[in-house]
């Protein structure tokens, strides 16, 4: 806890003006090495820290600071951690989940937003932020009629800044592509990594599902869409390197399942996979306890674990240590290695969220699709 806050709390009756000054001049939460103190100010009955971290209590209670309207709680957060959280504020019968009013660092996702605690040693990677020196690629909006999915699908196509018709490019297919753009800054990441020569200039096909819990759960129609419709469409419309090694399929969470499933169903189509916090639930015996949405996932994963084959030559897997899926992701690695797949597995002190996935993109993409830095001697 910060010395200023400790001093304040030791006072029998802290002055309201002093509290105002402290709150105005201090960054929250207070990060003091591995100790992180969250503070809430308000006339309420109870406050809880909600951070959905596997291993911690779902709701961590705050303590009221005597003779003030301050509430505080301290947790231990290992070096390099990054967590997303909300405050649950209770007044009488009323409970409300709110962002931390004292913390302006916020992460967005399809369900809204969370406050972000950047623990000791965590720093947002510079390559994930917009860099005016990086030449910007462009996005094209295309549509594809899918017989497999019996609907018309939007596809956003990323073209690198140096795109030319007479070149040939590797292809990256991205599940939840709109979300990757919006919440994981995928376009800035691709622009920056290309500029830094860490990935080659590439074309990315970004797909988004209106029914991802169904289509991304090990669904054969979706696999047919990706391998049998999207790939031919992209090959016909764009100058692609026409070989398996030059095609990578990626996704996070259920998108990871969809990627693994499509590559498993069509093993000659993708040379590499980038799987982030894949929802790879399985059951060794009996029923799983993750809810009905996971039923098809578990059916696929159980089948996959029986017969993993070789869905791709190289697979990058990342997962947050603070998510419950870490067990499933860790256990996938030896299954793939036993089939001769070259696997790289990265764990991060983060949870199941888009900024975790953003922060792992550099190491994953540059490993699967190495850029020309190796061949450039300025």
């Amino acid at each position: 806890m910060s010395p200023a806050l400790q001093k304040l709390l030791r006072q029998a009756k802290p002055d309201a003006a002093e509290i105002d000054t402290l709150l105005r001049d201090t960054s929250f939460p207070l990060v003091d090495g591995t100790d992180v103190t969250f503070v809430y100010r308000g006339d309420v009955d109870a406050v809880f820290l909600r951070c959905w971290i596997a291993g911690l209590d779902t709701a961590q209670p705050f303590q009221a600071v005597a003779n003030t309207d301050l509430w505080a709680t301290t947790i231990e957060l290992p070096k390099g951690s990054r967590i997303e959280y909300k405050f649950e504020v209770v007044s009488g019968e009323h409970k409300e989940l709110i962002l931390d009013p004292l913390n302006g660092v916020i992460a967005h996702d399809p369900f809204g937003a969370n406050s972000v605690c950047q623990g000791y040693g965590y720093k947002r990677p510079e390559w994930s932020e917009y860099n005016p020196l990086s030449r910007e690629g462009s996005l094209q909006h295309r549509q594809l009629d899918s017989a497999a999915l019996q609907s018309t699908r939007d596809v956003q196509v990323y073209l690198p800044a140096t795109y030319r018709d007479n070149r040939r490019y590797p292809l990256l297919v991205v599940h939840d592509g709109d979300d990757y753009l919006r919440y994981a800054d995928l376009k800035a990441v691709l622009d920056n990594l290309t500029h830094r020569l860490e990935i080659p200039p590439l074309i990315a096909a970004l797909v988004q599902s209106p029914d991802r819990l169904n289509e991304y759960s090990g669904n054969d129609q979706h696999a047919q869409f990706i391998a049998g419709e999207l790939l031919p469409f992209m090959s016909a419309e764009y100058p692609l390197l026409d070989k398996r090694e030059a095609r990578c399929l990626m996704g996070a969470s259920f998108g990871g399942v969809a990627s693994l499933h499509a590559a498993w169903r069509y093993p000659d189509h993708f040379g590499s996979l980038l799987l982030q916090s894949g929802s790879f639930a399985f059951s060794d015996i009996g029923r799983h306890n993750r809810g009905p949405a996971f039923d098809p996932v578990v059916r696929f994963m159980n089948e996959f674990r029986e017969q993993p084959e070789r869905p791709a030559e190289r697979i990058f897997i990342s997962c947050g240590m603070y998510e419950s899926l870490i067990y499933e992701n860790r256990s996938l690695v030896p299954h793939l290695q036993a089939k001769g797949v070259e696997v790289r597995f990265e764990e991060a002190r983060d949870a199941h969220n888009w900024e975790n996935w953003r922060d792992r993109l550099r190491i994953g993409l540059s490993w699967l699709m190495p850029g020309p830095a190796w061949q450039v001697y300025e």
Partner: protein
Amino acid sequence: MNDNKNEPWRILLGPQRPQVNLDAAIAKSGIGDAPIAVISAAWQEAEGDIGDIQRLVANPLHDLGIYNRAEKIFTADEALQAAYRQRQDQLIEQQRMYRLRLRQLTIAAREILRVEGNTAAVAEERRHAISQLRALDRHHLRQTRKIAARFAEQFSIESNPLLADHVAALKKELAGCDTVLITGGHVVVLLNRLSLFGFDSLLVNKNIIGWSAGAMVLSDRIVLFHDRLPQGRRDPEVMCEGLGIVPDTVLLPDASGRWRHNDPVRSSLFSRRFSPATCLTIDNGSLLRMQGGKVTDSEGIQHVTREGKFALVNTL
């Protein structure tokens, strides 16, 4: 530094950032204000953007534009472009297979070099492990040479009027310049373009200043290296033959930035693998001048010793 020998000289420089020594090198070269032909194909789309160089020197500069010449030829001659792509695909596949074998041999050689003791048996195993690497490198060079030769047979300069026209134009431009400057950048792109236009013979009688990639292409063997990639270090790979204008050298531009100096076993393996070629670092601010096969000036250039140390190169 100017001397009276008739042989053309070669000046090799490191990266031109943060410190620039190109202007000093040209000033010392003795060419006065004579025009210089520039090859900036390694910059790809930015080829010809030589304003920064022109601001450094008074000599008139003429960019030969070989990157864009090749682009125009590919656009006009689809058969040539298709054959060129096929050649590139074959080279990439060859590199991939070479890499698969290289990885295992490199691990083995490194481990054997780390084995303690200096018995005759250990020494023999070390020699053999290194000789296997050298054999693989030689094999890879043979294979890349074959692929290049097949393409050259199909599309020789003489048999392709468009290519021949460009080569004739390049010869005309070069006739007015005794000195050629080759910039750093993408070494593979640069070498491919130089090879397409037959620059091995076009450059041989010119004074040449090359920095980084522009220096590497002059050697007889291009060795790619980088220990500080985001995914970690990568074992050095022979890519293909260079122009052979600066023979018996392996050039390591920006070695202080790209090479991990804290592993003498790895550096020793590198040196012994490419022996009898001399492995030379060309860092920012350094300069190597050669003439008639001899080093006539050396500033900040180091060679990698058999023991894996980096020692300054003395002028001969």
